[in-house]
């Protein structure tokens, strides 16, 4: 490969691949934009050109093996699909089940935009289900963002408080705790809600206490060591919001500790955004707690979502050929979006347009 060929090949790769290639080779490569990154990589490749090229080819090979190659950045002339040849992202278009329907228009994509008429609040079936299941045991809720997890938390807390039980609600961030403190104070009344931080305790005797998960973990450790601090004996419900944080590299362990040491008489309610394996979480909790843990999950969004593409020149088009999101078909791109994006890549990457 000549240096120029190598440069071209690099320019054809997505930036993520270049970063992967740069790992361990180039310091602070994440700070560099694509053009700069290619420059630095080329300079570096001089040290061990064969090793560099072989790594590059391996990464490209891997990329092909990925289920959905991205639209190959190509000059239009070279864009002829060859379905029989092995799919190589740099030279061929990915095979895609051909749609017989024509791609939708922008106006049909925008259709239906607007404000819904106001309706009386009727809880969703999954919300009722979650609250009901909490009577029988712990509950993990995994639903898309914006579905209405707060309603479940509020209703569950209301019931526990009515039974003279203390409720602890935790969030991963102090900022979110503050927001919830304001929100819950409005719903339950200011005397019913307290907040605990490392150095401050506002209304610490209230039946509904808000804190970060770290603070709760510390309370549980103190209780384990014999120093009862908050009234853990009357604790009836622990709500862990944003519990997908259990997978946070630095802080995830705190969620595990909290769940392991949560007093057995208290029910646990875990609220989480959509994750791939919520049943694992439920099964795990069932295996370590006295009551079974139920999973309440739904994956469809309450407000449907559409995806679009906005070109830097201000032109808007649908991103996919369908009005909604074509689940399971990542390369079902709208022809116009595809065309514009290829044009974008061609124009922003000088080394490619030189050909």
């Amino acid at each position, binding site marked *: 490969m000549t240096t120029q060929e190598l440069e071209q090949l690099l320019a054809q790769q997505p930036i993520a691949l270049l970063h992967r290639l740069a790992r361990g080779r180039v310091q602070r490569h994440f700070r560099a934009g694509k053009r700069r990154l290619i420059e630095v990589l080329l300079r570096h490749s001089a040290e061990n050109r064969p090793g560099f090229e072989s790594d590059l080819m391996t990464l490209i090979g891997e990329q092909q093996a990925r289920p959905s*190659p*991205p639209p190959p950045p190509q000059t239009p002339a070279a864009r002829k699909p060859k379905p029989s040849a092995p799919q190589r992202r740099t030279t061929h278009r990915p095979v895609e089940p051909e749609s017989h329907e024509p791609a939708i228009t922008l106006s049909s994509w925008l259709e239906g935009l607007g404000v819904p008429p106001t309706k009386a609040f009727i809880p969703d079936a999954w919300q009722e289900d979650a609250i009901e299941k909490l009577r029988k045991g712990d509950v993990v809720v995994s639903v898309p963002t*914006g579905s209405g997890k707060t309603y479940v938390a509020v209703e569950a807390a209301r019931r526990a408080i009515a039974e003279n039980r203390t409720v602890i609600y935790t969030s991963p961030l102090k900022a979110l705790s503050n927001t919830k403190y304001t929100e819950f104070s409005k719903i339950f009344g200011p005397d019913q809600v307290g907040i605990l931080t490392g150095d401050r305790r506002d209304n610490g005797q209230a039946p509904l206490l808000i804190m970060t998960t770290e603070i709760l973990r510390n309370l549980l450790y103190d209780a*384990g060591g014999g120093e009862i601090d908050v009234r853990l004996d009357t604790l009836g419900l622990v709500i862990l919001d944003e519990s997908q944080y259990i997978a946070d590299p630095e802080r995830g362990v705190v969620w595990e500790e909290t769940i392991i040491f949560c007093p057995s008489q208290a029910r646990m309610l875990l609220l989480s955004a959509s994750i*791939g394996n919520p049943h694992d979480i439920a099964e795990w909790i069932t295996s370590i707690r006295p009551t079974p843990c139920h999973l309440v999950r739904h994956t469809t969004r309450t407000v449907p979502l559409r*995806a*679009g593409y906005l070109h*830097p020149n201000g032109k808007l088009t649908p*991103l996919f050929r369908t009005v909604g999101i074509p689940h399971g078909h990542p390369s079902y791109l709208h022809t116009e979006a595809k065309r514009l994006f290829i044009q974008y890549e061609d124009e922003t990457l000088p080394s490619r347009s030189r050909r």
Partner: protein
Amino acid sequence: MPPSIHPIDLILALRDKHLTPAIVFLTSRRACDEAMQAFDHSQILLPPPRQRAIADVLDKVIAQYPSIAEHPLIPTVQRIGVAAHHAGHLPSWKIAVEELMRHGCLDAVFATTTLAAGVDFPARTVIITQSSIRKSRDFMDLTIGEVQQIAGRAGRRGKDLVGFAIVTPSPYIDLNVLTKGFTGHPEAINSQFVISYPMVLNLLKAHPLDQIQPILAKSFAQFQLNQRAEVLERKLDDLRDQMEPYGPRVCTDWITEWQTFDHVRRQKSHRAPVRRHEPPEVAARFHFLTPGRVVAFGRTRGVVLRQYRSKGQKSPMITALRLGGGITESPASTVTEVSDRVLDCVDAPVYPWCTPESVEELLHHLEELPGRLPELPILIPKDDEPIPDAIVQTLGDFACPTCPSRSACQRDYPVASKLRQEQHRHVKSIQALRTSLWHRFQEKIDVLQQFGYLTPTAHLTEDGEWARLIRIDHSLLITELLRAEAFNGADPAMLAAVMSSIAHDDDRPGAFPRVSSGLASLLGQVRKLAASLSPHEDPPLLRADIAAVTERWIGDPGLTWIGLCKSTTMAEGDIYRLLARTLEFLSQLHTLKATHPGLADTASRAIANLRRGVLEELP
């Protein structure tokens, strides 16, 4: 064509299509700030009633949080109806922006993706400009779950019939990551269980040593390790079935028997032995350079992904994942140390020879390993000489040549021995999966015993009793500082300053106030101690410039927030976060009032000084 759409064009396009309000996720704070500046002289004004609505909401928030009354963004927010919301801002400012969004007053908010989880407000439209995100100093592609969390902010229940997630390209974008994110299923999440010193102390405070293993077994980490072990156990069952035809023959352990016989036979044969030009220690080591083995190459450490022999020379080679993420092909002779540690890794048939998850995990474990690891004792045979005569069995000692099952053994040996090796490997992996947490716990116990926080029977010592109350990062450094009485005589400002240099983990450079000479020499002492603890705990950055900011704020109660902000180039939000974290650290010191009354008192005076102005606004 510009590399990305101009903010004014963006807002005009959104307004034109009735796609407001929108959250515009940008790559950096700087990008957000620049987007706001673009509106400075813009005339795309809101109609007066909407401007008034914004002013009304802002007035209410300002009444509660006076710190934002003079916020420089307010004019633009009011005139144009756009705002920025990122970690460089004060929490009170972010509350104001959120409140404006909740009231539907704004057309757009420019935010950073880093805080997608912290952006607790929805909009009709979300604009996505990037496909990767900075995570612990490296840019990583967004996961499907992350793309959906970001896109999920679009479409407010009760306010929108549909939501829109719109991609607009920037030079960083990989469209494939996003389309996959929109259309895919979120990834499974994995446990990130880390065993820390305070965890060990607190568990041993409440439970005797023999109850610890069952407690660790309750973790999600162990749950997932068990899942992996079960997969291997199923494979093992499979292997057992496959081994069926290779059960006992004339001799019970015919596989070993045949192996030895075959070996001796080859030694005896007159053909020149396959000579490889490799020193005996390399040859001896090569057996141990199996996937997962932690090794050192001079000063850098790595983990073996596979071993092979080079094509032409047949010299022993390994592929290794090095600390920092590089994957290299090196001659086995470049390995300078073979540790006794083997990390779990799930093999794969192609580069990088294990699953991508394994790479991540291995890297993670590599980083976590202590500075010094025990070396594997490897017996190095002297030169290439054959096994000494005394031990060598002559061919006559084997029954094989005349054995009735000789031909069967000869035929089956390659398959059977491979299956058996695989069995052994799985058995070992399963054992590792079942016991790894406990081993990690024991390692921490060893260190705590060595430092005198635990007795030889793993009970808390007097020091352990108070040390367990320090439940923050760098706890070992902090408790060792207390034992060294490093803070005796330190005033509140100095104590707080040191705590903030321990708490602060960002290496973003900037201009800062000068440190006092007292603080500088105390920090020197802290640095020395931190370096000496580095085999057991990663040292914090301990930036003197950062400490100086805290020192000024606590040391001079007359200093205003504006005054403090002017003394450094650090963003307001960063200063706030620094002081808030310092507060957290100080309040942990405050819990030591029974054993360290003087220190607890200094800490509480520092807290009182720290909590003023902006830092008093929120709990």
